[in-house]
């Protein structure tokens, strides 16, 4: 039993010092005015109660970042999950040949480096020479200034995120689909159910636990989006792609208002926490 603690010691020490304690410290920090002067001498930081949080509520930039982040999560998340599920259902069909090849192609963007593909997509979205407008041209759609127009910048980032991520959830959905007993479909067919009814009455309910898991990890990931706006738009135009994490980064590591930035980080944490709790609750209702 003593060796159990020895085996645990390195991991637990690292997690305690470099994960757990910083969380606690960040919480305390969010009640101080820790800034660039405190950086040299910690004792200069003063306890200011809830001021950072009150100031956040009065900060239009914070509301903008919050709105943008929710836009990204609530539109991008479901879109990405739908695409993943669609691709999984198609790939899972018995008729498909070269399954491995297709799976590989769909999955390739997942393993790429986000910063690098963000660089690539900046050119894909080029208003005059980019692939995106070229493609849309075939459908008679006029060129869009994707990253320069406040209306289109966020949809542009969402399309990139869906392209980059759908393969990951697709793999999880395929595993879920393979666990659904074949007899269910056969019985449904006997009862005269069409493909759409089978999907609605068998596939979707049977996939509910998988979908919950996918929804939670997707939500947590999407709430943390940062590299896309950092590389492609710097949060612009007109702050239309400023995300919570980008705001936290700018406040904390550019302006060195670390107390304020810690408050931003905690708001993010609480939102993710509440989001996860809601989804767990929904799952319980579904199971009952």
């Amino acid at each position, binding site marked *: 039993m003593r*060796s159990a603690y020895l*085996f645990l010691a390195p991991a637990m020490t690292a997690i305690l010092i470099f994960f757990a304690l*910083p969380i606690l410290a960040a919480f305390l920090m969010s009640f101080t005015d820790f800034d660039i002067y405190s950086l040299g001498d910690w004792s200069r930081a003063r306890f200011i109660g809830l001021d950072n949080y009150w100031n956040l509520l009065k900060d239009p930039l914070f509301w903008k970042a919050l709105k943008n982040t929710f836009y990204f999560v609530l539109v991008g998340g479901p879109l990405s999950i739908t695409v993943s599920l669609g*691709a999984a259902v198609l790939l899972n069909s018995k008729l498909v040949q070269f399954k491995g090849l297709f799976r590989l192609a769909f999955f390739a*963007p997942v393993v790429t480096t986000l910063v690098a593909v963000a660089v*690539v997509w900046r050119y894909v979205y080029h208003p005059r020479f980019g692939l995106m407008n070229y493609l849309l041209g075939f459908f008679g759609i006029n060129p869009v200034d994707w990253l320069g127009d406040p209306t289109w910048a966020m949809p542009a980032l969402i399309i990139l995120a869906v392209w980059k991520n759908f393969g990951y959830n697709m793999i999880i959905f395929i595993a879920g689909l393979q666990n659904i007993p074949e007899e269910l479909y056969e019985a449904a067919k006997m009862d005269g159910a069409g493909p759409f009814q089978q999907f609605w009455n068998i596939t979707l309910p049977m996939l509910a636990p998988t979908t919950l898991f996918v929804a939670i990890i997707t939500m947590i990931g999407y709430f943390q989006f940062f590299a896309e706006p950092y590389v492609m738009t710097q949060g612009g135009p007109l702050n239309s792609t400023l995300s919570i994490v980008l705001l936290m980064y700018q406040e904390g590591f550019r302006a060195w208002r670390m107390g304020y930035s810690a408050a931003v980080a905690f708001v993010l944490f609480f939102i993710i926490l509440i989001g996860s709790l809601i989804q767990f609750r929904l799952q319980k209702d579904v199971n009952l």
Partner: protein
Amino acid sequence: MKKTLLHITLILIGILTLAPLLWMVSASLMPAGEANTFPPKFIPDNPTLEHYRTLFTRLNLLRYILNSVVVSVSITLISLLVNSMAGFAFAKFHFPGRDTLFKTLLSAMIIPAQVTMLPLFLLLKQMGVINTYIGVIIPGMASIFGIFLIRQYMLSIPDSLIEAARMDGASDFRIYWSVILPLAKPILVTLAIFTFMGAWNDFLWPLIVLTRDSMYTLPVALANLMGEHAQDTELMMAGSVLTILPVLIVFLVLQKYYIRGIMIGSVKG
């Protein structure tokens, strides 16, 4: 008919997912200016490696590759050791508070890493490891996901093997090293790929900890390059190719293990 339609749809999706990557490779081989034409070109007229040459000679890319390799390989090796030890303890030992501790760790997984970054930066500054490899490596040493992955796998290793080794007088550490680790090789490969790719692709933390140019990892260097060379499309594509290529190769060679990791991770969230 149905089959043809299905395959056409799949091929279309495949083209959409691969097009940006293929165009990246193709544009990186075009002479300066050729990627900025309408309609877009997909095949370079006169392929050239000049941008790759520029990256290595004028823009110090070799140094960034080296930084990325050192950081990613170190994180991978250290975390394999640390996480496999902890996973072993959770899977094969009974000690008070084990299940509570494990559950606490699992629920802590929803805490976004960004929350830790401000104090972590101050702590590492105090330790004097800002702008060093160690500063980048430290937060990646232990991962809850890694411990979870390894524990799940080790649960399936029969206890009788451990008891037999113990009868032969093997110490616990000996059992871990000579009995358990060899049996856990598949999951170690899986975790190694996950960790390596995560470390290679990581952006926010290296961006925070590394402020000196010569220490940049590839993603940080690439983002920085974007600031000065946004107009040089072909050059930026060459930089992106070199950043993505290593992880893509690792994945292609070991994809079976990577996919398995996603599956195990999704069994119990």
